[in-house]
């Protein structure tokens, strides 16, 4: 668990370099060693199953993360509206993706899955609402 992921080096070398990742595919948490040269994965070692190879290759060549955050909400039952990126965001752009939303204010009502912004922070990825907010008059008391 304490094994730290090494960020891939940017420089292209002549020899294969080894990068270490902790596989998150299952609780076993295999310590994967990924050999790569010029960004291309040559070999994945340390895995116990096929999922480790897939994880190691993806994590080294194009790491992406599910991103969720909140934005300001006006006229809802609470002040923040939960939102998420419509698809996984490249790991290096996660912070910028979230930071760029700081000024966004959404007015109720909001449909479940509504697209609130497109091409967030130049990633080409949409922002969608993960909670339905009904109009104030529909939140009525027991009659």
């Amino acid at each position, binding site marked *: *668990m*304490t094994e*730290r*992921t090494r960020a891939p080096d940017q420089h292209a070398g002549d020899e294969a370099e080894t990068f270490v990742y*902790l596989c*998150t595919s*299952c*609780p*076993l*948490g295999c310590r994967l060693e990924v050999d790569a040269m010029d960004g291309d994965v040559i070999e994945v070692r340390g895995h*116990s199953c096929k999922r480790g190879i897939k994880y190691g290759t993806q994590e080294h060549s194009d790491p992406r*993360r*599910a991103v*969720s*955050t*909140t934005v*300001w909400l006006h006229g809802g*039952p*609470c*002040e*923040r509206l*939960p939102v*998420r990126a419509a698809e996984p965001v490249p*790991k290096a752009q*996660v*912070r910028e993706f*979230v930071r760029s939303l700081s000024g966004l204010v959404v007015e109720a009502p909001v449909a*479940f899955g509504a697209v609130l912004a497109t091409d967030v922070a130049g990633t080409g990825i949409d922002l969608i609402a*993960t*909670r*339905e907010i*009904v109009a104030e008059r*529909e*939140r*009525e*008391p*027991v*009659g």
Partner: protein
Amino acid sequence: MPITSQPRHLLSRYDVTVVGAGPAGLSAAVAAREQGAERILMVDRDPEPGGILLQCIHSGFGLHEFKQDVTGPEYAHLALERVIEQDVDVLTNTYVTDVTRDLRVKLMSPEAGISTLDTGSLVIATGARERTRAAIKIPGERPAGVMTAGLAQKMVNLHGYLPGRRAVILGSGDIGLIMARRLTLEGVQVLGVFELLPFASGLGRNVVQCLQDFDIPLHLSTTVVDIHGHQRVERIAVAPVDDDLVPQLDKSWDIECDTLLLSIGLIPDAELARQLQLNLDPRTGGPVVTSTMETSLPGVFAAGNNLHINDLADWVSQEARAAGAAAGDVALGRHRARQDVTVTPGRNVAYVVPHTLSTERSQTVSFRVKQPIYGDTMLHLGDAHKRKVRAVVPPEMVTMKVSPKLLDGFAGDTLRVDAIPVEEEES
């Protein structure tokens, strides 16, 4: 689709009443309805159904229950859609203030005032509470800025307040790990996560994606030993612990911060269970239940985190489905399955739920291991069943499906649940 289905008029008698509209309550209500119970009431104290799912804005929910990776609010929405299809009365902004042992339920809400109703059966789905500073007796002063991770999550994700500027997190439970990432993305400096045990108590994927991705250090076998500050937290002291988990104060060091978040575990909210004088399991902190999640008081069922602390909302939904269906059966006066096998925690097992099994029906046994085993592990259910798994770790709940066929010939027996490394078994 309206997000709630507030009833126009409360009935004086319901077949099934569900307390709590989180993942357990939502699932139990649907199952009771599908079982044929007609008058079903679900009560929640919050303004909208969904429970803690609404503040768990991160993904990782729903892979089992909805066959897709969704966030907490999305999971709540999908679960609520099933409820609304089933014509369940959902009453929000409402507290259950009292339940008697003959199942009279007293409710209180700003809109409807105080009302009393009778119910054929009751499902307790009240979830859990977070352990606080008092639970682990951290010495020091008592400034503002010390709070549970879930409270900080509610402040940030629902109400738009930051709990502080420089935060330390004690406990590597999933909520703590998730909040480390969440606070970092919101501009808070998270100085480290400290864990008393030699392993993280949250899921491995959260250690990678919430800490490593943001270069937040995880200090294992280390804990908070002092809190300083007059109005507000100014500084805390941390120290490594020895093999007996005793802090080595001579090796302590100070960290300047204004916030200390505690992610040190959940305890079942057993207030209703205690009021109803249900038998409780000291290992789980929740009620003792049969294979249909029926407690020691006939007609009262428990499901979700008030029964035992689950790792995934998906398992809560599944467990609550069994509870809700049986609550529907009982309300309709149907036959109860015999509870003729007892289960008990054995080697490397912290607790087992349910506490009895039936040779008449299929059921799922859930348990947690005490120590991690990183390798092939044999799970035993007495001599009735065994199953090999790749690894078992305390953060992940282990489940075993048990069919009546497996229990053939074990009626009247007590089965011990063990989790043993395969290599030790063979030697």
